[in-house]
């Protein structure tokens, strides 16, 4: 692999032969013409299989939309761990395939991997999903994400109406800010229906561990949780296990209604196709992509699955009303007075963190009513 990290000889040969070629053909060729006609090569990197009914599939659907654009070559690599492996994948896409726009889509790719490679490859644009690009990070790197917590808040409203035991469950992968935000939003949505509801969370520790996800779902059902959602890469196992235990399901990442049937309440889905085609179009046109891109329901970054047949009329009404509020902008799920589940004050009375607040992206707490711990 060491040849990947020493690309200069290869790059030198490439440039040198191009220069020789240009010199040899001389006046017949206009310098720069070849460069302008060079098609854009875009690389997508996924942490799991790209048809997992979940996170990776949502990105692969976005990549498929890019593939159909004129003058764009799309590279994809799946099952790339959040380790040195992703650096090797990025380097080989850059050096061997000539990619100049990369979408490494897993959270753990950003720090340290993208932060390490971006300064060394200034001609390449690194667009990372979920990370928190901040001032001082390389300028050829950027991060984009959607306010999917709002989707989980809407999931929570459907769950709050559907639960009889007043206990809802959440199967989570790792305690990172986005996951915590989803858990908190799910519970707060349910508490907007009934403040007595609690949410039990179980962390599996990995993005994709089929057996452990099934065990976690069973443990939640054993404790009486009758609506279950998740934040793991592929929600298929959680969905199917929850349904087999008679629990309702709120989806995540993609539409899982084919898996859960009548037990499917609704789901928070990504809509990356719009985001990716826009970024690629900007790159081709030579426009700058902002380093920090965010969007929510109103921007078309996320969408909700159609409401399932099990939702009551009251649930539908509140769901649509809150959805309209979110679409209007400035909605806050985390608002005072609010404590975390250890008793610390998160938001004082009158204080609110609206969906776009950057502070939410470094969230390290679980709100009051969530049974679980971040470590």
């Amino acid at each position: 692999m060491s040849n990947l990290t020493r690309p200069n000889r290869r790059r030198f040969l490439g440039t040198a032969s191009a220069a020789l070629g240009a010199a040899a053909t001389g006046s017949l060729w206009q310098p720069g013409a070849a460069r302008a006609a060079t098609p854009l090569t875009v690389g997508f990197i996924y942490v799991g299989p790209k048809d997992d009914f979940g996170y990776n599939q949502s990105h692969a659907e976005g990549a498929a939309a890019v593939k159909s654009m004129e003058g764009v070559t799309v590279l994809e690599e799946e099952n790339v761990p959040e380790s040195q492996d992703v650096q090797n994948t990025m380097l080989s896409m850059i050096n061997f395939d000539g990619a100049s726009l990369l979408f490494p889509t897993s959270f753990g790719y950003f720090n340290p991997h993208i932060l390490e490679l971006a300064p060394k490859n200034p001609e390449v644009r690194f667009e990372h999903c979920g990370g928190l690009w901040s001032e001082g990070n390389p300028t050829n790197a950027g991060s984009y994400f959607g306010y999917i917590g709002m989707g989980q808040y809407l999931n929570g409203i459907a769950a709050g109406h559907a639960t009889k035991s007043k206990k809802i469950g959440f199967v989570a992968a790792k305690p990172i800010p986005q996951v915590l935000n989803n858990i908190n939003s799910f519970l707060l949505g349910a508490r907007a229906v009934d403040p007595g509801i609690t949410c039990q969370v179980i962390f599996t520790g990995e993005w994709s561990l089929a057996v452990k996800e099934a065990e976690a779902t069973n443990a939640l059902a054993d404790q009486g949780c009758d609506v279950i959602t998740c934040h793991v890469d592929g929600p298929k196992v959680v969905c199917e296990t929850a349904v087999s235990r008679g629990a309702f399901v709120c989806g995540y990442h993609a539409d899982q209604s084919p898996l859960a049937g009548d037990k499917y309440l609704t789901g928070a889905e990504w809509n990356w196709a719009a985001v990716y085609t826009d970024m690629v179009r900007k790159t081709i046109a030579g426009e700058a992509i902002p380093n920090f891109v965010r969007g929510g329901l109103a921007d078309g970054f996320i969408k909700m699955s159609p409401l399932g047949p099990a939702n009551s009329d009251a649930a539908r009404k509140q769901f649509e009303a809150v959805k309209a509020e979110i679409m209007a902008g400035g909605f806050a799920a985390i608002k005072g007075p609010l404590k975390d589940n250890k008793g610390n004050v998160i938001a004082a009375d009158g204080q609110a963190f609206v969906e776009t607040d950057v502070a939410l992206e470094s969230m390290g707490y679980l709100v009051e009513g969530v049974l679980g711990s971040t470590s």
Partner: protein
Amino acid sequence: METVDIGLWGVPLAILGGAIRVSTPFIFVSLGECLTERSGRINLGLEGTLVFGAMSGYAVAYETNSAFFGVLAAAFAGLLFGLVHGWICKFKGVNDIAIGIAMMLLGMGLAFFFGKPYVQPVAPDLPAISFGWWSSIPQVQAALQVNVLFLLGGLLAVFMTWMFRATRVGLIVRVVGDSTDAARAMGLDPDLVRLLATGVGGALAGIGGAYLSLYYPGSWNEGISSGQGLMAIALVIFARWSPANCFWAALLFGGAGALGPALQSVGVTQGYYLFFAAPYVLTLALLILTSSTERSMQGAPLELSLTK
């Protein structure tokens, strides 16, 4: 769904349920490996066979709409993998461990390659028998949903114990495993016996894979096994090459694996990464407790490349 609040009882119940749900692949792979190793060979390729069995079982069950055909297909695929391993290993100078690693990677690679179109579809599940009819608590009923393959695995462990102890076939496998020369002197063909033992062992591992994809967790994806095949091979050594012990060791592993999620669900939430390591900690502790300086490899077939 009317649930009863079972509180802390959830933990022992989850361990029991987990032992029944999670252990079946361990049972089949370790029994298969036990048979192969008793004949004097190690087949490390069973992880690949498990994954390929999961894929082929799921694919065939989906195409034929019958979980039963899925299990048959997985067993057949496992048999082929085992036979290839057994056939290659008969040549001089071939190392069975190296071939096993190659077969493991081959099995996983082929499964990923052919399995792509089957990640999304939903295949029929294997049936389960409900042993919780006596209880009115839904959690107990759910924990006692026992799959047919689990019962078969238990019966198979008893059968293999009897086979090794009391039958001619068992004797032949043991002789070949303990001394090639003695086997030849008896007029046996050690290569043929090992070929068959590896083939049958592979078929059992394939069935274990079908359980993963067709019952629990019940869908095919590339991370379905997460190393369970390798752990099951280690279980054989832990179980001292005894089929009955393989069964108990598999139960122990399944139950310990359920500990982490169950503890979180009752509110023991600190340090869950540590609880997830429970099966491995338990194995290490038991190995240390049962270790001895005098009879370190007791029960090991003498022709095994571990003991030579």
